[in-house]
């Protein structure tokens, strides 16, 4: 484990950044300021933060419709993200993409994606590209337990394994896919077994333990950089909120979510406990980080609110390079 104090603090801070971002995104959606649909990452913070902590700035990720957490974990700017949610000219996509299409190519963020499974082949291609260009870049491909039923996973995973591409398939088993539990939709007993058909070994990890995620991904990154090929990791976690903001959650057993929100399981509380008990952080430091994250998100909201709408003429721009 090579996490120094600053890194640990940064991870903790980012987890709060995500939590606060989502809480404001939810609110803005409810105010009708965010359009379309917005999917919150609340409760899954440890996956994105743990995984991205194992990456360098020039490494790549592909994300999903539930992409805010991945973007923030990889270093995305909350102000430009929030502005994008409000469709503003200052947003990551100049207001053209919205919540489901935020990308920051300078940070290796190859985009959220509105197509379930849409990032899987793209990530694999980015890994191929790294190999041809002779860089040491690796790629993390985030996707959901629902997305694991898309056929492209077989195709891309097989190719990655064949050619030992530096890509990590990181399945977020948050137990739901849209408005249904995910478990009744995969025939393998444990989702990580899906990897067996692709020539990989599936590695389960506790997705609410940021350090476990970090360590598992770190090893996968090491293998990838060493030319040993792809990994398939399944992070077991839980989607705290509805599929989209506004989801009535009629299909979720009463009391289930609460069991995941306990201090023992809440990924932030859990990591905080570790930081205090094992890494010498003072509770006040943690609280300060939480507040700083909240303030940063507030500033992002303000920035977004204050930003201008895109000019109508931009409609016709950016179709072609």
């Amino acid at each position, binding site marked *: 484990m090579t996490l120094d104090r600053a890194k640990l603090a940064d991870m903790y801070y980012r987890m709060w950044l995500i939590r606060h971002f989502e809480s404001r995104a939810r609110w803005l959606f409810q105010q009708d300021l965010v*359009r*379309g*649909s917005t999917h919150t990452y609340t409760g899954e913070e440890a996956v994105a933060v743990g995984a991205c902590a194992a990456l360098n700035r020039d490494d790549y990720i592909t994300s999903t419709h539930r992409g805010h957490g991945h973007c923030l974990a990889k270093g995305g700017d909350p102000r430009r993200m929030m502005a*994008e949610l409000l*469709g*503003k000219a200052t947003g990551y*996509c100049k*207001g*053209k*993409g*919205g919540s*489901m*299409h935020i990308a920051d190519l300078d940070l290796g963020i190859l985009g959220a*994606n*509105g*197509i*379930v*499974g*849409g990032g899987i082949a793209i990530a694999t291609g980015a890994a191929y590209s790294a190999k041809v260009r002779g860089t040491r870049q690796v790629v993390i491909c985030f996707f959901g337990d*629902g*997305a694991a*039923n*898309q*056929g492209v996973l077989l195709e891309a995973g097989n190719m990655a394994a064949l050619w030992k591409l530096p890509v990590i398939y990181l399945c977020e088993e948050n137990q739901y*896919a*849209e*408005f*249904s539990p995910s478990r*009744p*939709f*995969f025939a393998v007993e444990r989702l990580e077994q899906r990897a067996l058909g692709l020539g990989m070994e599936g590695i389960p990890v506790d997705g609410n333990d940021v350090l476990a995620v970090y360590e598992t991904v770190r090893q996968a990154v090491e293998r990838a950089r060493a030319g040993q090929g792809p990994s398939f990791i399944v992070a077991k976690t839980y989607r705290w909120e509805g599929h989209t903001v506004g989801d009535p959650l*009629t*299909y979720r057993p009463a009391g289930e979510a609460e069991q995941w929100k306990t201090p023992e399981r809440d990924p932030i509380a859990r990591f905080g406990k570790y930081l205090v008990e094992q890494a010498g952080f003072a509770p006040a430091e943690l609280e300060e980080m939480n507040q700083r994250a909240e303030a940063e998100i507030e500033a992002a909201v303000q920035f977004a609110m204050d930003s201008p*709408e*895109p000019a*109508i003429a*931009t*409609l*016709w721009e950016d*179709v072609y390079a």
Partner: protein
Amino acid sequence: MAVREISYRDAINEALREEMERDPTVCIFGEDVGRYGGPFQVTRGLYERFGEWRVRDTPISEEGFTGMAVGAAMTGLRPVVEIMYNDFVTLAMDQIINQAAKARYMFGGKARVPMVIRTQGGAGRGNAAQHSQSLEMWFVHIPGLIVIQPSTPYDAKGLLKSAIRNDNPVIFIEHKLLYVTTGPVPEEEYLVPIGVADIKRAGDDVTIVATSRMVHFALQAAGELEKEGIQAEVIDPRTLKPLDIDTILRSVKKTGRLVVVNEGHLTGGFTAEVAARVQREAFDWLDAPIMQVATEDVPIPYNRQLEWEAMPSVADIINAVKSVVYR
């Protein structure tokens, strides 16, 4: 006694329910169509009534379950597949185009593939580029398919019932912004025939052919134009393939002017097909070029103002009509 008014969503739900009652081979496949009642609540109550084998919640496997429907249709079922956004048909095109649409012909007339693909398209809700397309034209281009786009609850119900009873693969494209709209739907059973256009408003000065949500835009435009003394005839083809060209030609021969409105992209869209066909078959009756009102040739943007600018508007239709009437 006044006819009751129900929503487009409920009209579709009724069509499904009635056909499933009537014919035990009708089955539904799709994501969250069962227990949850459908992502847009269109299949509400059907799972409880007909059980999991006839209302099947599927994994997120569009190619797989669409292809399953083809096999099921060839062997005695009448599957109704729901593809949540028409943008996701991209994942199932092989099953639709190379299998469903062609099986009968390739096999020399020996197969029947009675299946319906229900999906929804259109922009206006801020769903951005991957959830707002209007891809009907891809299907209109392919022999072997039937393509339907209902604009009202009445048409939606009557056409879906016809589609389910039809022995061919039918692409049935709803509009995301029409689900909540309401209109008269009789209690007693009726069918709307496939391939028959509906004149939604009569008029002598100009013909407006419009589809899906654009029918309502066209009617609104017609209302405005009437104030200026322009009487527009608004025709809703309802079925895009096969197209009821006769009704359109009859109208154009009366008005001498045509504006076509469709939410697909301008280039290569449905408006182009209608324009090409009408100029070919009614050239000498035309007093002005046929105008096309369609979505700009850009991916649908997220921002509200940009999105609205990209889509056809009532004002666009009015302008197009004026450009052909005051020529």
